[in-house]
């Protein structure tokens, strides 16, 4: 069986939905935790959690989809180290986009705040109330996030490099409207 030549439309849509969730939840998280207690703060925390749980579901869907629909191989002609770096980054990002919402959910449970998804669906507490554990998970949540931020920068920089300098179709595979890279 030949490997697929392109990402499925579903895979592309899921990728960008997760990207959107990260793009919203990350700055929101950075901003909200500095705020003094106010209705706005409580609302933002809820939105952040709703986006996070949505991201968790989206990533789980991505992984399930990926099992049934293998992604296309990297374009030929890349140096070996780049291939290794690309795979390592992709796999780490999958892992982080799963671990980050999970650590947030765990943190919320440990700090004694249940998560009610979109204010409607109550989610179970993953652990009992345990403030020291909650503080630990808070640090973990932050550390995982900054690791993800670094990897996203690498990921995006690599995609732009492929498009702008290598003029290959790497970025266009995820941004179908781009078609192939602009050739000088």
């Amino acid at each position, binding site marked *: 069986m030949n490997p697929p030549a392109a990402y499925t439309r579903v895979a592309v849509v899921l990728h960008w939905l997760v990207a959107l969730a990260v793009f919203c939840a990350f700055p929101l998280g950075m901003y909200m935790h500095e705020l003094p*207690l106010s209705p706005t703060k409580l609302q933002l925390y*809820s939105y952040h959690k709703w986006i996070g749980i949505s991201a968790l579901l989206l990533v789980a869907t991505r992984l399930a989809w990926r099992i049934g629909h293998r992604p296309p191989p990297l374009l030929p002609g890349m140096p070996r180290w780049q291939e290794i770096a690309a795979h390592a980054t992709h796999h780490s990002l999958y892992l982080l986009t799963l671990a980050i919402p999970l650590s947030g959910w765990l943190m919320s449970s440990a700090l004694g705040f249940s998560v*009610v998804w979109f204010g409607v669906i109550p989610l179970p507490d993953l652990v009992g109330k345990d403030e020291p554990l909650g503080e630990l998970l808070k640090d973990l949540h932050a550390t995982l996030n900054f690791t993800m931020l670094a990897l996203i920068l690498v990921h995006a920089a690599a995609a732009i490099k492929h498009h702008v300098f290598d003029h290959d179709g790497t970025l266009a595979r995820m941004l179908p409207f781009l078609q192939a890279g602009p050739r000088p």
Partner: protein
Amino acid sequence: MKRLLLALLIPAHGVGTAVAAEFNAVQLDKSGVSFVSKQMGVPIEGQFKKFAAQISFDPNKPESAKAQIDIELASIEAGSREANDEAKGKEWFNIREFPSARFVLGGIKSIGSGRYQATGKMTIKGKTREVVAAFSTKLDGGKLLIDGAIPILRLQYGIGDGAWVETGTVADEVQVRFRFTLASNK
């Protein structure tokens, strides 16, 4: 002297049934006052660690029960340190001016099988409102356990003023829950 008199009187009256006793000694270490509020649809539990309670309750004469509960608002545990500080402030309980809340029992109506409905007056932040409590009682090892709740509307007392008046974030309704263990003072 009073005690001695009571000690002499009680056996003379209360030999009818095993539960023919007035329970009137609240065991604070086996009692609690807590509350559940809803923030963005999320139930958040809190409690008041310090309160005083004078209760007398005779299962055979529930209508003659008396109760007064005084809650030390500074002892609030609202879920986080930040929330505790906020709750003590002017917009919430304003404990500097109103250090305690009080519930005084009005009347009790039995609704069967150890369940009761009580009315009373709740005073918080200088505002007194009529409230209705539902509770049940249970005998346990010679002690009486009282377990119930009083739904209140926080805005009726001005709890959560300013930006918090809006109820989309913190709901107006708060369930105040209580649990008292009463011994009979012989």
